[in-house]
């Protein structure tokens, strides 16, 4: 009899053990991909610091990075939703430039900058809505629809603005500027906004019905429809979310570089860098699964690698080579994780 009790006790303890472990292992399991990228990131940082302690132990370089990195983070996070739903958006950088143009033109005309920012975000959201409609109503494949939208917007902005730059230096030190691009001590405020965007995206993706629905839709479209999820609305919302982010990122970039200038060429590199952030972060294009935190770390990794390579003394020509190498290594590591 006592033996049996002992056994029962052991069993209970075992169960408790399993339960308490589950919390940690579950976290590790869910964030495996993101964490592996995070480890790569830490190792890279250590390498940079060892190779070039003067620069990488100095705050200035972080200041510079933390001014441009937030734009990429803000763009990358909502893209996770679109990609998890098994769609893609290739028009987001053009949309960002478009929104920035709206912002720059209206703010230069003397409108209240907060209002101009709202307009920029609405403009971005509208483009996102159109993208969504093209995909769910007309049934275009998102890769084609958004390539079309990308060219359309690029042309619209170039033609509409006559490629005339609009300087925004007059905004410096206004309350608006200080809210979105000022500094706290030496720390760029943009980075705080990036963290706010991260928190919002994580809440939506991990804890909200929207994240749940978007995962189901990307996982099994038919089944989701039969279970009563409004598939069209969910997908459209994801595109609109990207559009809103484009509007915000556009304003951030305007304040960071203090001008609107529709440079041809470089937008494509930004687009690919942001998409790569999402992918190396651990969100596959096969749909149904993704990680917001991964995209965040992915964006950080790529941005630091770019800086690190230049600061390590290699000429700029080599940056893309190493960027490519890191991307391929990260993706390969995900593949191994998956097959385990």
């Amino acid at each position, binding site marked *: 009899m006592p033996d049996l009790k002992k056994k029962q006790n052991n069993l209970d303890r075992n169960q408790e053990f399993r339960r308490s472990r*589950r919390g940690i292992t*579950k976290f590790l399991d869910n964030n495996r991909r993101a964490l592996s990228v995070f480890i790569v990131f830490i190792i890279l940082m250590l390498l940079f610091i060892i190779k070039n302690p003067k620069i990488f132990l100095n705050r200035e370089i972080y200041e510079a990075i933390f001014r441009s990195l937030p734009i990429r983070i803000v763009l990358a996070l909502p893209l996770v939703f679109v990609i998890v739903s098994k769609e893609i958006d290739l028009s987001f950088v053009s949309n960002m430039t478009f929104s920035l143009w709206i912002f720059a033109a209206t703010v230069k005309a003397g409108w209240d900058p907060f209002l101009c920012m709202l307009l920029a975000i609405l403009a971005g959201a509208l483009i996102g809505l159109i993208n969504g409609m093209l995909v769910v109503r007309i049934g275009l494949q998102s890769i084609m629809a958004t390539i079309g939208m990308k060219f359309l917007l690029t042309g619209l902005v170039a033609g509409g603005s006559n490629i005339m730059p609009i300087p925004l230096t007059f905004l410096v030190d206004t309350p608006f500027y200080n809210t979105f691009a000022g500094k706290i001590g030496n720390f760029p405020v943009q980075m705080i906004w990036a963290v706010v965007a991260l928190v919002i995206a994580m*809440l939506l993706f991990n*804890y*909200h*019905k*929207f994240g*749940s*629905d978007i*995962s*189901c839709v990307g*996982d*099994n479209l*038919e*089944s*989701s*429809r*039969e*279970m*009563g*999820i409004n598939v069209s609305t969910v997908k459209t919302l994801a595109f609109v979310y990207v559009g809103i982010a484009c509007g915000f990122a556009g304003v951030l970039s305007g304040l960071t570089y203090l001008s609107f200038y529709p440079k041809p060429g470089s937008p494509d590199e930004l687009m690919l860098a942001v998409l790569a952030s999402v992918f190396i972060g651990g969100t596959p294009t096969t749909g*149904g*699964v993704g990680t917001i935190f991964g995209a965040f770390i992915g964006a950080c990794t790529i941005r630091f690698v770019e800086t690190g390579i230049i600061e390590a003394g290699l000429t700029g020509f080599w940056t893309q080579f190493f960027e490519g190498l890191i991307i391929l290594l990260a993706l390969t590591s995900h593949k191994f994780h998956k097959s385990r």
Partner: protein
Amino acid sequence: MKNKFLELKNISKSFGKVSALERVNFYIKGEPEIVGLIGDNGAGKSTLIKIISGIHTPDCGEIYINGKRMENWSVVKSRASGVETVYQDRALAMQQTLARNIFMGRELTSIFGFVKSKLQFAEADRLMRTIGFTSKVFASDSAVVNLSGGERQGVAIARALYFKANLMILDEPTTALSLTEAQKIFDFIRQARKGGSSCIFITHNIYHAYDVSDRCVVLDRGKIVMETDREHTTVEQLVKDMQKIAQNNGKVREGINNARS
């Protein structure tokens, strides 16, 4: 006598040139009952239940719920009437958790739409145990892809259980299951009937159908060819009847062949 819960009248459905259903009449009583829907592969069983659950629109015919004619029958209306379907070919969202699958499209949310994950996990756990899946391996936060065939079926049934269906439709739930797993499903169906849910149970195994059903309906190439209460037949008789139907088929086929040659 209560109204019939569900009644289909003169339902036809064809896919291009294939006529899947021809003038089918079918009903579910007002009192809970288990109806076995039997028929060969391609007989039109899945098509019939997809019409009931609103996925397919019939080419013609009428649908009544509790005696009331339903217009523009749809997935949403079907679910609102308390019809829960466990599909044969539509898989679950494999990479999502068990709990998320059970509550797919109908998440338990607080204001602002945040999902009550803990409650969902707890409910999922309770439901799976109710149905009889007490495996130590799975938890309500395991991805469905890691579950066994029976457990996956259980997930779909748990939906029906949680949302207290008036009518559960199970499309060949036992085909991929082991004997003990199949037995669990049968127990569950009987239990659900006691709880007030009717069930349409699709199979092409006559013994399974006889085992669990109150009434058997045989579908053959788009037509209902036989209907019998369990009380009025034996499993041997049922097997004989089915053989006869199969032979008739053979004759018809021969007839067609002869006419052609």
